[in-house]
């Protein structure tokens, strides 16, 4: 039977772990609220941007004068995957799920004989991908020092991606991030950013009947706005990712706290039982000792 002192030690160790997980859960909850707010604030811009872009893209269409960012390079040989994960662990399956989604795509692309290049954002995804696909990693964006994701961070990533595109390093680009659904569910999402695609909701299509004048020309506006659109999409993804990370961490830590609760309860029961057994034992010894006299 387990020794009383050992049991006592285990109980206090589980209790202090519970304190930590509880604290982490509360910190994550506070950060989640802020991250959600940031994502919320960014939405009007992203939506209106996408609406205008899809209008422009439709009117310029596939003509030869369309910018390469929209039309693509005409090849589909080299793929650039930008995989966004968290900088820290302890958030359940969040990082793993995103990486898994990316790896799925890498495998299918490689099976088709395509070349794959990877840029990682966030330390956790990089650690996993480096083990499996170390030779495909071409860059890493460190977000450790970034407390709050700003548009500037997204712009930097976008600039890097666009430079590589201009130099013909890749033809198609996808980003991977966790889309925030609620605190329980985060959906690993894949989104194509180059050649640019724009989703249009039905409501926007209704408004698409308006014929706009453009100043300067449609092509010039499009050329000016496309790089910004890439940055905007990356920014939205970063914000979603930040909210998802905190949500995932909150859920994971909530589970851990509950687990610790259960464990403390079990251990306490065992401790009490053991203590009782020890007392009974001592009594038996005393009584049998007295009887022997």
């Amino acid at each position, binding site marked *: 039977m387990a020794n009383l002192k050992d049991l006592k030690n285990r109980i206090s160790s589980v209790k202090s772990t519970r304190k930590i997980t509880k604290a982490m859960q509360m910190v994550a909850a506070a950060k989640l609220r802020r991250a959600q707010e*940031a994502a919320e*604030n*960014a939405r*009007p*811009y*992203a939506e*209106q*941007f996408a609406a*205008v872009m899809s209008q*422009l893209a439709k009117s310029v269409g596939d003509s030869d004068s369309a910018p390469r960012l929209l039309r693509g390079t005409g090849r589909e040989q080299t793929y650039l995957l930008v995989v966004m994960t968290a900088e820290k662990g302890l958030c359940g399956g969040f990082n793993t799920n995103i990486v898994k989604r990316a790896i799925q795509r890498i495998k299918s692309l490689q099976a088709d004989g395509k070349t794959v290049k990877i840029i990682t954002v966030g330390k956790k995804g990089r650690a996993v991908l480096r083990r499996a696909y170390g030779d495909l990693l071409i860059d890493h964006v460190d977000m450790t020092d970034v407390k709050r994701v*700003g*548009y500037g961070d*997204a712009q930097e990533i976008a600039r890097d991606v666009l430079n590589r595109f201009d130099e013909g390093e890749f033809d198609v680009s996808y980003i991977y991030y966790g889309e925030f659904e609620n605190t329980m569910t985060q959906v690993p999402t894949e989104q194509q950013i180059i050649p640019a695609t724009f989703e249009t909701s039905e409501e926007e299509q209704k*408004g698409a009947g*308006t*014929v*706009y*004048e*453009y*100043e*300067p020309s449609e092509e*010039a*506006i499009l050329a*000016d*706005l496309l790089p*910004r659109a890439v*940055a*905007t999409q990356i*920014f939205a993804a970063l914000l979603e990712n930040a909210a998802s990370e905190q949500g995932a961490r909150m859920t994971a830590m909530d589970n851990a706290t509950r687990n610790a609760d259960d464990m403390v309860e079990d251990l306490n029961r065992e401790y009490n039982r053991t203590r009782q057994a020890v007392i009974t034992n001592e009594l038996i010894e005393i009584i049998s000792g007295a009887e022997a006299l």
Partner: protein
Amino acid sequence: MADTMQFDLVSPERRVASYKATAVRIPGAEGELTAMPLHAPLITTLRPGVLHVEGEKGTEEYIVTGGFAQIGAEGISVLAEESYHRDEMSQEILDRMIDAAAERQRKAVEASHNDPGPVDDAAKLLSDMVAMGNHIGLSSKQPSL
């Protein structure tokens, strides 16, 4: 006739302003333009400058850099890369903007040598920034431009 229209100013990080306005003066890429209610639908890109909005409570001024404005039947949406209310604008922000523009010009000169396109664009961006600073009464660090 409608005498006011919806005016929205959004930047990637937040919604800066949203209210009814009677006239909006926009620093368009090809010159200033004033949009009033029932203006013809128009999309124009912006150059760095000051956005004047006449609303019910008088004229408000906003600093915008980059982005575009969409003038439609329902109103005006300005999507600016960076945007501040005139009162929020400070010397530090202006310095940062001008530094970024100067940096870009330097890079453009390095990267494309004497290809006039990018270099001119960057130079124009920089001078627009400086002009904007002068307009709102903040001095720019590089007076010799």
